[in-house]
């Protein structure tokens, strides 16, 4: 039996009969007109959340960390939960921009810019938490980076996973910004060439570095793009591996397992793709990009959520099985405690959101239904936050009974978590207003008409 027409033929990446010139007009439009009501209302909401965030910071720093819920039983608390959550969110952007580029997945072209922006902003949100957790963030920079000093000189402990994390996350942030910026140079030149106002001309001119679309430059640019993809691919896998080492290299039951690196990486991509769907579904409406970020793009992302979600679910079950199989009473207790201890509710939120939710994407109807996929992506975001919560907080029942205790997030923990979303959304909405949301140069290069013309030019030989 023949497959239906829609399955046999790859659908065009740009719909609605848009020409190459339309790509320029549509993608530049949000940066060239006054924001809509929807934009300003969401922006002011995000700004308010960010303002509360800054107030909460100020209070927590001046009064002290006693305002938040950390104690001897759980001395990392929500800060590490949020840190790992945000770093994980970032991974989808690099996956789309680097790994899918190496696999020649051309559908990535219209979503890679927004996803990379998300990476940069998510990592910036993540970076705040370890700093905040030191209690004296203005000194933290001196704790984490090695520098010559008069205390011996004492250097940072390069054998510690926390120090590896400093290098991994700072390298990841730098490489993400550089990759994102380099990809934007040709599009910034487009905005510069369309600009009328001198201030716009100046800033877009400054950041487009004098790009003028020369073929000799494109050759270097394409090579550099390929190299960025090639170095960002092992980098992104290493970053969440090293984040998982923060836990796995310790010798605590429930943490000291070899499954952590792959399981963290799969979870990071899973949560990141869910966040991409959460953001792009409203963004494509708000900025009228439905012809570039089509329902087919969203469907492919939902397939990746299904794949990585199944990997994560499989890891949960493997982890539990190995704990039972290990014969170690401490390991067994750690897992039974996760599922049936005082934090059983967090465990079952995690299990239902991460194991069951993505399975709905087996159905084509759900993969292509905007309201359903958006709702499911929210469940995944919640589930992945709770995954880290479960990992961190269930240690309040560790293998030494005197160190048992209770962990309760305070009001300020919640404000800081909500506020970090405010920071993220503020940055993302600003990005949508002043920078090109889609990679115009790449969308044009993979425009159905361009592909046809290049194919025809080969047939001519």
């Amino acid at each position, binding site marked *: 039996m023949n497959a239906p027409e829609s399955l046999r033929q790859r659908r065009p990446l740009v719909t609605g009969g848009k020409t190459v010139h339309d790509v320029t007009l549509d993608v530049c439009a949000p940066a060239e007109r006054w924001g809509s009501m929807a934009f300003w209302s969401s922006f002011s909401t995000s700004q308010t959340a960010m303002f509360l965030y800054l107030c909460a910071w100020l209070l927590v720093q001046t009064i002290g960390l006693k305002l938040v819920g950390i104690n001897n039983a759980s001395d990392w608390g929500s800060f590490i939960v949020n840190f790992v959550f945000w770093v994980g969110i970032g991974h989808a952007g690099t996956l789309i921009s680097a790994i899918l580029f190496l696999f020649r997945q051309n559908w990535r072209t219209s979503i890679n810019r927004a996803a990379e922006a998300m990476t940069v902003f998510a990592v910036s949100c993540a970076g705040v938490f370890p700093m905040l957790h030191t209690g004296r963030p203005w000194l933290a920079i001196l704790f984490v980076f090695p520098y010559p000093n008069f205390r011996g000189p004492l*250097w940072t402990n390069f054998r510690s996973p926390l120090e*590896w994390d400093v290098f991994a996350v700072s390298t990841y942030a730098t490489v993400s910004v550089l990759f994102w910026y*380099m990809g934007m140079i*040709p599009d910034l030149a487009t905005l510069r060439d369309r600009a009328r106002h001198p201030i716009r001309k100046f800033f877009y001119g400054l950041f487009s570095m004098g790009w003028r679309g020369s073929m000799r430059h494109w050759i270097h640019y394409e090579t550099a793009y390929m190299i960025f993809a090639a*170095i960002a691919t092992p980098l992104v896998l290493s970053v969440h591996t090293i984040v998982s080492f923060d836990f796995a290299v310790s010798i605590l039951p429930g943490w000291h397992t070899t499954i952590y690196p792959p399981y963290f990486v799969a979870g990071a991509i899973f949560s990141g793709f869910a966040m991409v769907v959460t953001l792009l579904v409203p963004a494509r409406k708000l900025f009228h990009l439905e012809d570039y970020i089509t329902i087919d793009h969203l469907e492919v992302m939902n397939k990746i959520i299904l794949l990585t979600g199944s990997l994560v679910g499989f890891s949960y079950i493997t982890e539990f099985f190995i704990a039972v199989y290990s014969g170690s009473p401490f390991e067994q207790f750690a897992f039974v405690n996760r599922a049936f201890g005082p934090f059983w509710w967090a465990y079952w939120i995690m299990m239902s959101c991460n194991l069951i939710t993505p399975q709905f994407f087996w159905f084509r109807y759900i993969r292509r239904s905007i309201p359903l996929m958006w709702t499911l992506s929210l469940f995944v975001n919640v589930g992945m936050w709770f995954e880290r919560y479960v990992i961190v907080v269930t240690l309040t029942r560790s293998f030494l009974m005197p160190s048992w205790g209770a962990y309760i997030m305070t009001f300020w923990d919640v404000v800081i978590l909500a506020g970090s979303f405010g920071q993220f959304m503020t940055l993302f909405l600003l990005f949508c207003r002043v920078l090109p949301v889609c990679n115009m140069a790449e969308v*044009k290069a993979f425009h159905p008409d361009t592909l046809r*013309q290049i194919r025809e030019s080969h047939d001519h030989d």
Partner: protein
Amino acid sequence: MTEQGILGYFDGPKAIILGAKRMRKTRQFRKWDAFTPFAVHTLDEAMDLPRSILPWFVLASGLSGLTFAIWFLSWTSAVNFPIWVGGKPMLSWPAWVPIFFELTILFSAWANLLGMLGLCGLPFHAKKPLDLRFTDDKFALWIPSDEPGYDAAALEAALRGAGASDVRVVGKGDA
């Protein structure tokens, strides 16, 4: 200083690829260039432009990052302030591999961006765009006046013969 030369406009990627191939049938160009809104694949082959040497810079920089990391961690841990913990060797390099890796990547990434801009001569040797629509949807071949054997009239005829929809002489005597 304004550039001088001749611009031949083509209607789209197919026309410019075929145009570049037809132009090369009669003679070779050393200094020509094309302006396109995106990287037109196979146009570089059609124009016989050389590959980028950027990967060598990135390799060199990545290796120097690795070397620096090995030296710096060995020096701080074993020479400058050695701390003997739990009978473990001073040069416990397996625990340093993550940092070796990250610094290799970090140095490569900087060399990649700066090397790309340097090889393009940007931003310090940037030239004015010859047409603002090249970053939108226009395609053109550009033959500068310092090309050996430059002859505007002959080149104009050749460009039109190669399929150019419009030809514009840039520079002296041209507004």
